[in-house]
């Protein structure tokens, strides 16, 4: 069994052997790569990238889904940046992302760290139980949570009332609705991040911990100086995908609040859906989607930079 190098960095490939380079010119490698990539690129190209390009074209038109769309230049984009509803949706989406991403990732990480303790009893059970919410669909999750916090017959409201906490009508409360829909997303998604962190943790050889312990490092110091740095790859991966999930928040909001009360849970994707499928303004919905795409791309790059990942590491 080969172990990871003691630096704990993800395994760096050795320099390619000289012989291979000579036998296998750039053209040959390109062809090989093309063969491996072809099926996936064909699917992605046809069913994701082509529709994306169509949407880009539509974003400069007044398309409604019927008839010939008319070219209207940047009008949709101008509207995106001037419409107060969009500003509200941007604010809400930002709030959602800022609430969801750290909470979900921190919860997943903390539980993974705790579960990684071999002395903990019932580890198998906890591990399984914490993952179960992930297999529940967002619509079912939203439905179950709505029922739990129903002001009339909600079990959670009833129990909390017994403890002297008046939850009130959570989904109709402009201050509580957003935390509530974030909570449902955390509940539904943290199990997946948790499993990924567990895998990352189990990748770290115990020999490093033993060495650290012999150097007199305490639990906190081992966490800060060994575990977290060695998890940084996993962390970057989880953070990026958690952030993308947050920026595209839609499902549970659609079911639980419909964007209300007073638009306080109206996110960008809710706005995109409403513009496209309720007001039949596909052109505007497409423009808004592209603005979201650009923002997501930018934020992802910031994250890569933050994690000290140079361009070289990314690809």
């Amino acid at each position, binding site marked *: 069994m080969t172990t990871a190098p003691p630096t704990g960095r993800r395994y760096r490939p050795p320099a390619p052997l000289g012989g291979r380079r000579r036998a296998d010119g750039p053209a040959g490698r390109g062809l090989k790569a093309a063969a491996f990539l072809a099926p996936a690129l064909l699917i992605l190209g046809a069913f994701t990238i082509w529709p994306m390009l169509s949407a880009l074209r539509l974003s400069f038109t007044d398309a409604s889904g019927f008839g010939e769309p008319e070219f209207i230049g940047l009008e949709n984009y101008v509207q995106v940046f001037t419409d107060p509803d969009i500003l509200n949706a941007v604010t809400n989406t930002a709030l959602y992302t800022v609430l969801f991403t750290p909470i979900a990732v921190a919860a997943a990480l903390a539980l993974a760290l705790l579960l990684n303790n071999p002395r903990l009893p019932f580890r198998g059970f906890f591990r399984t139980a914490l993952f179960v919410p992930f297999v529940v669909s967002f619509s079912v999750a939203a439905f179950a949570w709505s029922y739990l916090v129903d002001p009339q017959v909600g079990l959670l409201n009833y129990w909390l009332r017994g403890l002297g906490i008046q939850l009130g009508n959570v989904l*109709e409360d402009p201050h509580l609705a957003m935390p509530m829909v974030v909570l449902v997303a955390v509940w539904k998604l943290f199990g997946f991040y948790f499993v990924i962190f567990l895998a990352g943790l189990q990748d770290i050889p115990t020999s490093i911990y033993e060495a650290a312990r012999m150097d007199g490092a305490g639990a906190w110091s081992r966490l800060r100086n060994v575990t977290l740095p060695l998890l940084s790859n996993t962390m970057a991966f989880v953070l990026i995908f958690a952030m993308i999930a947050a920026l595209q928040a839609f499902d549970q909001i659609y079911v639980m609040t419909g964007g*209300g009360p*007073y638009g306080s849970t109206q996110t960008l994707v809710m706005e995109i859906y409403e513009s*496209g*499928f309720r*007001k*039949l303004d596909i052109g505007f919905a497409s423009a808004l989607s592209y603005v979201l795409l650009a923002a997501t791309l930018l934020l992802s790059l910031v994250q890569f930079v933050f994690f000290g990942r140079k361009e070289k590491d990314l690809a």
Partner: protein
Amino acid sequence: MKRKTVLIGGAGSAALALLGSGCSGGGETGGPATLTFWHGYTEADGDVLQGIVDDFNASQSDITINTEVKTWASIDDTLLTALSAGEGPDIVAMPAERLPVYADKGAFAELDDFYNDESSNTANLLPGAVAMVEIESRKYAVPTGFVPLAVYYNTALFEAAGVTAFPATWDEWVATAKQLTVDEDGDGTPEQYGVVLPDHATVANGLWPSLFYGNGGDIVSEVVDAVIDSPENAATLEFWRSAIVDDKISPTGVDGVGADELFSAGKAAMTIGGPWMASIATENNIEYAIAPIPAGPVAQAASAIGVAMAVTVDADDNARAAAEKFFAFFLNDDNAAAWSLGSGWPPLRSDVPAEAVNSNPVVASLTEIADLGRPLLPGVVNSVDVLAAIDELTQRAVAGEDIAGLLAEAQETVQGALD
């Protein structure tokens, strides 16, 4: 339901040919046609509608109509995509307030010629029902339902509280509701409410418009002008906020669905609803009766729940002609009465004699009040934003915010949506 050929893994499947618009032939009309009809009548009304469709299919040999039953919400979710790719239905029924936006974007065929044709059986349709399918004075659909919102009340609770007559005015209504509100443990939260008045997402979005009408107010005038910021509407909001919050006759923060649930759980003595409340009440063993929304200081009126069916762009001329034949059949003397009886909605034609529908007590009660109904936002294309503005207005007003400020804000949003 017909079986469809399904190919797995094969490119260029032939299944397409079996589906969708059944557009055969070119511009000729009168030839054989197979039409798809999407609607959301999922209950007993769906069976009656299917019966009418079956009768139509049997009544002639050229045209076959296949129905596809979905929920109203999923029709709205899937229609745009399907039509954008030529895979949509030929005929689609939808809630009337969703009609203008589709018509405006060119999704539906204009039906003025059909209405002008004497054999279309449209001459005696209720004027309110026809108004709701008109966009810029052209007609784009045929109504399949038009009924004013009404009060459904729990007769057992009325009896227990000793109420004998149903209130006729707003003041009486509030007094009765107070009488029916029970707070046994005195904790300030009644266990039983006299009435449930949702403050947003009300049934068919019609509760607050109905109340506005009662005091002589309105929301939109002549499709283009927002008139929501009026002293009449301010007074209406003040009056009902005081009744809901101070007199506690209704819970706050409830939506239309929640209202129906409270009524069917016996926790509210009155609710404002549509004809389906009758079957919901029966299912929940609640004895009920139906009454008109009591008169406001100025008028007695109620926003109407409307449903209409339209011919889509996916229907060619031949299919459109076939669809019109079906519409005329649907509206003929026999079916107008049969549909009303079976669906539990009042007849769409004013010339259906009362005796024809007396056998269904719900229909009989609703028919009596049918002329109180006003279509909701007829012809308003961006009803989404207008309705959202009303929801925000009423929800914030009931929550205690400044009504004058809210109305000014709503006025601006509504006007913005109309421009």
